[in-house]
């Protein structure tokens, strides 16, 4: 499936920002099952200082604000061919040892509720079945809802909240999968929803490493594994490691963000 | 050179100069309280006002009281404007700019701090006060001497000098601002003895009694004092002298960097006022107004130097 993406993130500040930086992970890469035909990033109100690959082989750009700027706009446009591989991404490449994906992070630190949830899961079955069962179970316990979405919830907090957005689902899944002995990671990317062109936000899901298959994706919020409608952009141990944009600025200016995102089949 | 280093040198020398000036003011206050006790209270008040510490003193200690004021100005740990605090701040800045200082300058500052820390550890008894004030002036002079003798004449030295003269001019101007009314031409007609006391305080507070005598003989004339402290290019504490030096040092930096900055124009504007005016013109314009303008312009200059040479972000 050929997908075109236009993703605009717009920040406005209520006072000039003397100095600011944004680390952006917004460049999808070609890999088996995903061919990036074309991808452009345009920055207004700032400039790309350096670009590099991080430890997860994500393409990262460091953007600085033009001094005294009050608006920054980051626009990505591109075309990606994706094939449906039933969520299977394949073996771990590069230098990162698999044990790294068993490390818990601040956002994925297992608390009593997640531990209890994992303990209650029935054992047995093939790994992929186990993980699908986990995914279904999470969606049942914490249904998807964008009401009162708080950012930067830990996995444990998301369970307490009783409802979740895709980011929280991914965190709960990652935390639980690691407890079950599977290396797991967070994926940020795009999803073409069938019924619309305008998307509310970019998407997130999880991947777990399964013997023989390698990495397999699980989109808890939608209840299935990623297919040809999913563009994989960045991975990390949690949201913070794969965040599309994370930044830092000097001064007291307040920030407002708006996102517009269109994903279409060409 | 780092912008922070330029700022550190500027402030290190400002703080040293300030501590030295405060010592002079205490000296003047002490003299008055020993010789003319009736005038002491109002003189102490005016000294507190010229140091800008009147408000904080009153809040902490109430009515002016010689011994309390002396301790407050010398060493009160709650007074960031005390001599001890000034020396500490000078040394802290010296540590920040340690790599820009010669070993001699650093050691002079450090020793100044160590000596004062010791002599100001306890309240200073009356009989020791003149000696302690002498130590402050002397230690500060050692630093100046070490800088003069060992620092390379480049931008670092220039920023240090600008800090010294900036603070010194500020100090002279604040004393004048407090006392302008007794220097007005009309005052001469009054000629009461209390005015003489105040003239004497002005000279003592700026440590210029001897210089005045050398240049103008024994007769104290308020008009001459005003001219002496504002326009006399021979007196190293006069506004004209200090601004001449500030202009010169900014000029050296501009030359070294091959670029003139907005602060150069501001400094030149201040200097040109001293060149263009004689005392008559200043009195016609209004002495108080003239000093007020000067304080405002010099504040603006200070801010501009800080921006032009990137003292901070």
């Amino acid at each position, binding site marked *: 499936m050929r997908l075109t993406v236009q993703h605009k993130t717009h920040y406005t500040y209520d006072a000039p920002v003397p100095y600011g930086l944004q680390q952006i992970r917004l460049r999808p890469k070609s890999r088996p099952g995903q061919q990036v035909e074309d991808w452009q990033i345009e920055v207004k109100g700032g400039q790309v*200082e*350096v670009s590099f*690959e991080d430890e997860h082989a994500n393409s990262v750009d460091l953007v*600085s604000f033009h001094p005294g700027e009050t608006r920054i706009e980051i626009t990505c446009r591109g075309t990606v061919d994706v094939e449906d591989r039933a969520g299977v991404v394949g073996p771990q490449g*590069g*230098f990162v040892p698999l044990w790294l994906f068993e490390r818990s992070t601040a956002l994925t630190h297992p608390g009593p509720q997640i531990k209890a949830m994992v303990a209650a899961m029935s054992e047995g079955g093939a790994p992929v079945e186990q993980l699908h069962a986990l995914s279904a179970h999470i969606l049942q316990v914490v249904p998807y809802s964008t009401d009162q979405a708080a950012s930067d919830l830990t996995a444990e907090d998301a369970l307490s909240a009783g409802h979740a957005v895709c980011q929280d689902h991914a965190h709960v899944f990652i935390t639980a999968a690691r407890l079950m002995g599977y290396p797991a990671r967070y994926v940020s990317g795009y999803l073409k929803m069938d019924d619309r062109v305008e998307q509310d936000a970019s998407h997130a899901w999880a991947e777990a490493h399964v013997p023989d298959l390698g990495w397999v994706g699980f989109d808890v919020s939608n209840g299935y594994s990623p297919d040809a409608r999913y563009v994989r952009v960045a991975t990390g141990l949690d949201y913070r490691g794969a965040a599309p944009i994370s930044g*830092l600025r000097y001064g007291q200016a307040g920030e407002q963000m708006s996102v517009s995102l269109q994903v279409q089949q060409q | 050179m*780092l912008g922070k280093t330029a700022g550190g040198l500027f402030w290190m020398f400002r703080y040293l100069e300030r501590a030295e000036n405060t010592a002079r003011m205490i000296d003047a206050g002490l003299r008055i309280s020993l010789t003319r006790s009736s005038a002491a209270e109002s003189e102490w008040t005016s000294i507190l006002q010229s140091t800008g510490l009147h408000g904080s003193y009153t809040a902490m200690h109430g009515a002016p009281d010689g011994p309390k004021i002396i301790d407050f100005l010398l060493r009160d740990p709650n007074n960031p404007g005390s001599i001890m605090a000034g020396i500490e701040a000078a040394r802290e800045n010296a*540590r920040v700019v340690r790599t820009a200082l010669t070993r001699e300058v650093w050691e002079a500052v450090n020793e100044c701090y160590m000596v004062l820390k010791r002599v100001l550890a306890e309240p200073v008894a009356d009989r020791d006060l003149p000696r302690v004030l002498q130590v402050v002036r002397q230690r500060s002079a050692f630093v100046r001497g070490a800088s003069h003798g060992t620092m390379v004449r480049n931008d670092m030295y220039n920023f240090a000098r600008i800090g010294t003269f900036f603070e010194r001019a500020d100090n002279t101007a604040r004393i004048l601002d407090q006392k302008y009314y007794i220097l007005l031409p009309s005052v001469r007609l009054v000629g009461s003895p209390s005015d003489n006391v105040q003239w004497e305080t002005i000279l003592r507070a700026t440590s210029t009694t001897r210089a005045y005598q050398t240049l103008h003989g024994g007769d104290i004339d308020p008009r001459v004092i005003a001219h002496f402290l504002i326009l006399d290019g021979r007196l190293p504490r006069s506004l004209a002298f200090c601004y001449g030096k500030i202009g010169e040092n900014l000029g050296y930096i501009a030359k070294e960097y091959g670029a003139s900055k907005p602060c150069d124009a501001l400094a030149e504007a201040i200097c040109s006022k001293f060149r263009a005016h004689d005392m008559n013109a200043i009195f016609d314009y209004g002495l108080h107004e003239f000093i007020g303008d000067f304080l405002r312009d010099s504040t603006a200059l200070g801010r501009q130097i800080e921006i032009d040479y990137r003292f901070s972000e």
Partner: protein
Amino acid sequence: MVNKPLYFDEMFGHGTDARLPYEAYCKWFNGEDNARLLEKSEEAEALFRLIGVTFNVYGDPDATERLIPFDLVPRIIAAREWAKVAKGIEQRVRALNAFLHDIYHRQEIVRAGRLPAEMLARNEAFLPQMIGVTPPGDIYTHIVGTDLVRTGDDAFFVLEDNARTPSGVSYMLENRETMLHMFPELFSKIKVQSVSQYPNSLRKSLSACAPPACDGKPTLAVLTPGIHNSAYYEHAFLADQMGAELVEGHDLRVVDGRVAMRTTRGYKPIDVLYRRVDDDYLDPLTFNPDSMLGVPGIMDVYRAGGITIANAPGTGIADDKAIYSYMPDIVEFYTGEKAILQNVPTHRCSEPDALKYVLDNLAELVVKEVHGSGGYGMLVGPAASKKEIAAFRAKLEANPGNYIAQPTLALSTVPILTDAGLAPRHVDLRPFVLVSPDKIDITPGGLTRVALTAGSLVVNSSQGGGTKDTWVLEE
């Protein structure tokens, strides 16, 4: 029968006659008046205070700047003794660098089964952000301090490898300056190898690791957490001696793809940053977001080849005390040779058998926190009270993986000057090593730390230790 001293004394061995390296010194010393030397000692202290060779003590607001006591009896090492030690250090440092490269790339040592993966996996000092990063010149530890102890004529042990930001080199240099100032006549009698070239070697060594983005003569800077840091004096000293700027995080920004410092003339790019700020505080954008000491974005510029950071982030894994216990294997794995310098035998409390042994023998052992430094959080069994041992036992049992234990070594002594003349005190040695792509440069000697209390084995300056000048004699 004469009781043989329990410890090897470097001046007198186990006897009463001066050992060969000390002969000339002792001859001089015997002609000196103790009172005059004690006066000299006070002179030296006043000099240190004036120069400001001080360190700040954490959690002690009244004594924020303290002197490290200086003892004016030098520690003397023969050229022959030093040559062997230096060879051992060089081998070890080479292995450390190879190890660091390996664990941030293919981890061959883990694949080969010579190091358990858990040693890295559970280790906070392992920085995932460094995976796949090859620093300019492939040098990770530009500056290393290898702590050594001696137990006999020919017995040196490595106590720990300081591969993050070893400090103390300024004391080594100031100690020598002070000795030259106070006893010029000694140096004309006894030929001592110079240490004063260190700052110049440091500058050259760092310059040799300039990043790809550098064109022309590399610009160096020293990054300090600021004047309140315990080692600020050293940071200023080294910057001054190298002719480099001493910068703090707020002096730096990312400008045009480089890390640049704010000068009076605008932003100027830095090629090599000798940082004395810990990994976690280095970059709030990548590590601890609350850090005010670091430089946002520096890790990004680093990974893009725009700057060299010395030492590289993530080198702390190599001086971790749990990794230390594997050093003999690490040296052998990467150099193909047996380690020349021995490790102190180390019990890893994470292993049940070792833990049992340690718990059974607490009174005889030194127990250290795996990630601790500066002598904090350790138990010196023979010197501890029953109560202290019991308290430590509880801590150890609660978290055994956090500790290693070593036998109490019979550390050598070197005499210090006291009111009653010479008296032996235990010492250790931190030689300073510079690593660049073309060579490993070891300054002859290093910093001798001395426990000033009779019988004490704790030499850390934060715990009342002092220092001595260290002489390596010319051949």
